[in-house]
């Protein structure tokens, strides 16, 4: 019983990290209608930033979050300018945009592989091997910290979207570009801002991931499928939906991992995606950035 509880809590912590990974993606989809298959590679970029800052300067990966966010944000801005700006003003979704993001992911993947090879890496701050005990429940510090930091970042994002003018403008734009223009919102700016914000969030998630999972350049392909399943499950563009999906599935996945075999655990995400496509193709939750 204690064991189950512990597995659930671990799943919850990981779920919060996945949720953070998915929020940036959802934000970008909500505003720009772009399924950004390059999102996971941005997360990896953030992880590499945190890793090297730790290895070279001993900087704690949690403190590296702002730097990783800035690096990924700048990278996002460059990618946006070069690749997506042309389509940003158009209302029409096109499959080609997805392939564009896929091509971008391959470019970044190749670049990372060129520099860092296929070596598995993991950041190892002092707390990475520590653990808390609450009664008989054993809680690795790394998981706990990453979960808590993710949670606070998600809450901060939610508050920003709920209470700031720009945040509400982002939600308004995600509901309708034309209507947003009609109240004087500069939609192209909102798109750029959301894209950068999404990439910066990927960077934050990357810092946290760097001491929770070991990573290497091709890792992002696995995350593509996991994160995409969260976004589809959450109803394409609903942040609350994606976060809920992340937490529920991650808990399920860690139960599967504990009782079946760890290598089966990601299966939960993919199967859930197929089940949803079967019974409710429009996803579990409502629409857009709510």
């Amino acid at each position, binding site marked *: 019983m204690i064991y189950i509880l512990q597995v659930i809590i671990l799943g919850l912590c990981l779920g919060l990290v996945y949720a953070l990974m998915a929020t940036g993606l959802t934000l970008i*989809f909500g505003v720009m209608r772009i*399924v950004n298959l390059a999102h996971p590679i941005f997360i990896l970029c953030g992880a590499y930033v945190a890793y090297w800052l730790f290895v070279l300067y001993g900087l704690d990966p949690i403190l590296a979050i702002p730097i990783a966010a800035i690096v990924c944000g700048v990278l996002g801005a460059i990618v946006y300018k070069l*690749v997506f700006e*042309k389509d940003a003003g158009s209302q029409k*979704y096109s*499959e*080609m945009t*997805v*392939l*564009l993001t*896929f*091509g*971008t*992911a*391959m*470019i*970044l*993947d*190749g*670049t990372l*592989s*060129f520099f860092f*090879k296929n070596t598995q890496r993991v950041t190892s701050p002092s707390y990475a091997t520590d653990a808390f005990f609450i009664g008989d429940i054993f809680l690795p510090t790394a998981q706990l910290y990453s979960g808590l930091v993710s949670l606070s970042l998600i809450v901060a994002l939610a508050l920003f979207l709920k209470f700031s003018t720009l945040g509400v403008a982002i939600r308004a734009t995600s509901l309708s570009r034309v209507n947003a223009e009609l109240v004087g919102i500069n939609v192209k700016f909102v798109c750029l801002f959301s894209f950068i914000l999404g990439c910066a969030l990927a960077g934050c998630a990357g810092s946290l991931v760097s001491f929770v999972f070991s990573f290497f*350049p091709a890792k992002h*392909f*696995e995350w*593509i*499928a996991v994160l*995409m*399943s969260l*976004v*589809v499950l959450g109803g*394409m563009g609903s942040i609350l939906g994606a976060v809920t999906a992340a937490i529920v599935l991650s808990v399920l996945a860690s139960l599967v991992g504990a009782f079946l*075999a760890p*290598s*089966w655990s*990601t*299966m939960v*995400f*993919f*199967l859930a*995606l*197929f089940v949803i*496509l*079967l019974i409710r*193709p429009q996803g579990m939750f409502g629409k857009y950035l709510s």
Partner: protein
Amino acid sequence: MTNSKYLVPLLALLMLTMFPLVQFFSNQNYIIHLLLYAFFYIIMTSSWNIIGGYGGFISIGHNAFLCVGAYVAGYAAVRYGISPFYLIGLSGLVAGIFGFIVGLITLRVKGPSFIISSIALIMIMRIVFDHWDLVGGASGITLPFNSLPVQWSKLPHYYSFLFLALAAIYLNWYVRHSKFGLALRAVSHDETRSAVAGINVKMIKVTAFALSAFLIGSAGAVWADYLTYIRPNMFLVILIAANIVLMVILGGKGTVTGPIVGTVIFILFNEIILTFFGATELNILLTGLLLVITLLYFPDGIVGSLKNKNILPKFLDWG
């Protein structure tokens, strides 16, 4: 000069059929390898084009069917000692049925959701095959070698792939010019209107999907024999699917000759890169770069762009 429309392809076919004769004089196995590799990818790109080009369903997971085909043949070869060449049809059939079932589920959604589901398909299969002891799990299956002298050892694959490639191209041409293809393109434009016009939308989509799975699965049997060993991580990686998509887009999706042109050019491009840079990680970078540049500047691909400008050579203009 309407004759050139038939003349060039027929000449090309004749030359390709006769080419292995050079083996009598000198061993050109590498060129044979490149050619059969091109045929192999033409089978996949042309098949992909049926559902991706005409149907508008972009799949980044079509290698799933290659995997099914290869494993059916590989398993039967090892377990019952049947040559994979006799199993081409069976492999195709199993892959086709598998495609039909997958299509029933994933073709219910369009656009981004479909693309995502196609990626998830590979991930699921990867986990399943990695754990499936019957087919060797992650370490896969080793097939028996064929006993031909080295000079002739590639020829069975060469001619099988050539034949299958012709079949795939013909199927593309057929789909482009038949009522079935018309319905398929109508569905890709607007499902609701097509349904109102009396088209059985679901069957059309799923049939097209299964057809393309069938051809790719057939190729999988030959490919398994060619490789002589098969492992999940050789088939179930996104890069293969990415190459297929890139080749079709490069050549021009939704055209009969686009997949052929795209495949040939991409394989040449790859060869050049390999000669100059060797097999490095730059390969994936350049593939991505090529994809992005094509999408941004020539979204209609080579054949499509030439056609728009009315300067497409006759022999490439098959609709």
